[in-house]
């Protein structure tokens, strides 16, 4: 009994996204998520330079920088643009890395209530509340203050660490 059910569930997962993708038309924004790690190289003149490379040799304690990039691929401006990026399992949020000026950044612990860095609170077991720690953030939201013009690309990145 065990083997057939597993095989069946795998088939469901594999087929579902492909089937939906076929059914949907393209939207107005292309969204990309990339994972990068820092690599320190010593240049010819002896300077240490940190560059970002595709996530490589990631072990517990490694910092991974997630970058979301949105591009308007339509002929019309896109308004109310908000990108929600979760902090993956096994990772803790450390801080923002490079964020386009147009974004206002908010955070969430539960994926429902979003607030700025000083607006999130956690309710303790004894009923008291305290400010949330950054390592408790599970979602980062980048909301554009202005419209995303046709052809315009914006990006934001934040730093996480593998637990």
């Amino acid at each position, binding site marked *: 009994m065990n083997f057939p059910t597993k095989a069946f569930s795998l088939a469901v997962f594999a087929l579902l996204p492909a089937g939906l993708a076929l059914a*949907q038309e393209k939207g107005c924004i292309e969204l990309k998520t990339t994972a990068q790690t820092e690599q320190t190289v010593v240049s010819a003149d002896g300077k240490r330079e940190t560059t970002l490379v595709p996530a490589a040799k990631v072990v517990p304690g490694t910092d991974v920088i997630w970058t979301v990039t949105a591009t308007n691929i339509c002929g019309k401006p896109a308004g109310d643009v908000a990108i929600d990026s979760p902090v993956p399992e096994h990772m803790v949020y450390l801080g923002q890395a490079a964020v386009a000026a147009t974004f206002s950044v908010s955070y969430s612990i539960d994926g429902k209530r979003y607030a700025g860095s000083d607006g999130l609170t956690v309710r303790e077991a004894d009923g008291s509340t305290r400010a949330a720690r950054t390592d408790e953030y599970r979602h980062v939201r980048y909301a554009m203050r202005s419209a995303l013009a046709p052809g315009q690309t914006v990006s934001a990145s934040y730093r996480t660490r593998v*637990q």
Partner: protein
Amino acid sequence: MLIQPANLRRVLLAAATIAAGAWQTAGAVGTAANTSIANQATVSYSVGGNAQTPIPSSPTGNSTPGGGAPTTFVVDNRIDLTVTELSGGNTLVTPGQLNQVTSFTVTNTGNSPQGYQLTPTNLAGGAVFGNTDNTDVANLRVFVDSNGNGTYDAGTDTATAIDTLAADASVVVFIVADVPGTTTNGQFANVQLSARAALPGTAGATLATETAGADTPGAVDTVFGDAARDATEVAADQYAIESAALTVAKTSAVVADPHNGTTNPKAIPGAFVEYAIAISNTGAAPATGIQINDPLPASTAFRSGAYNGAASDVSITVGANPATFCVAEAGGTDTNSDGCYRTATDLVVGAPALTTVNVGAGGNVTVRFQVAIN
């Protein structure tokens, strides 16, 4: 097999449970190697004031609602370990002892199961516990505490390498060595245990290697995470050699002569002379199996019955304790088995009259006997 909707729900639930279980691998040493970390952002927006269907991201860019794919990477294998000395102090040994044990703990602080090759060595110089190494132990061996009791069990703890140690797990490792009989009191033999990461399940035989070059996406690369990045850690321990160091002094005094009695006796023929053999132990371990062989002086005759109301020939005092006595039979045989007898030339004092000289003033032994000057 026909699957009804109710069954389908159960199947999906089961799949979700399996997935959740796979995530629960993060321990104190971090996320387990081969864990896939996935991230997928979603953008919501509106066009002309009308909210559009949110679009999930993909690693290369997606613009189709419901499409996209998570951006993922696989957590690589960080090899890290610690080796620590277990007891916090040295192991006291005496010269000639076999199979003496020092103990260590090897801990897998990496994020996947590892094996370890174990190497014991004699250190040359250097201080451990503040004591400088100045001798070596012999026949160094290493064994893994197979039954987890923290004590070396000969015949049970036979593995000489750690086959597989789970992430965050520890195991005790023993160095077992023989103490050369030539070592002396106060010497220190410093030893070191080296543990080198090996592939799990190879009994320490196949050493782990770091993945060279660029990351292999989707595959588990091996990274040495220890301080020296050599997948090797060491710890030192120490054998402190304790031995007896005996000091023997022999004095004589005239105790009586035929003319003066015991008052200011002189060493004239017929006088009694008492010899006192004082033994003290300035070492660190009791001296056992003590036997005194003292040649009787020429031109004298051994005085029997000199002590204990004329019942005994030899007086033995230990520390501040009252004297004990024995009879030193002539003829070379200890017929009453009290430990004392005489050969043609020597006085012999041994067990049970005298067996051990303990360390310190309380262990000082004085053996007295008398002779008459011919």
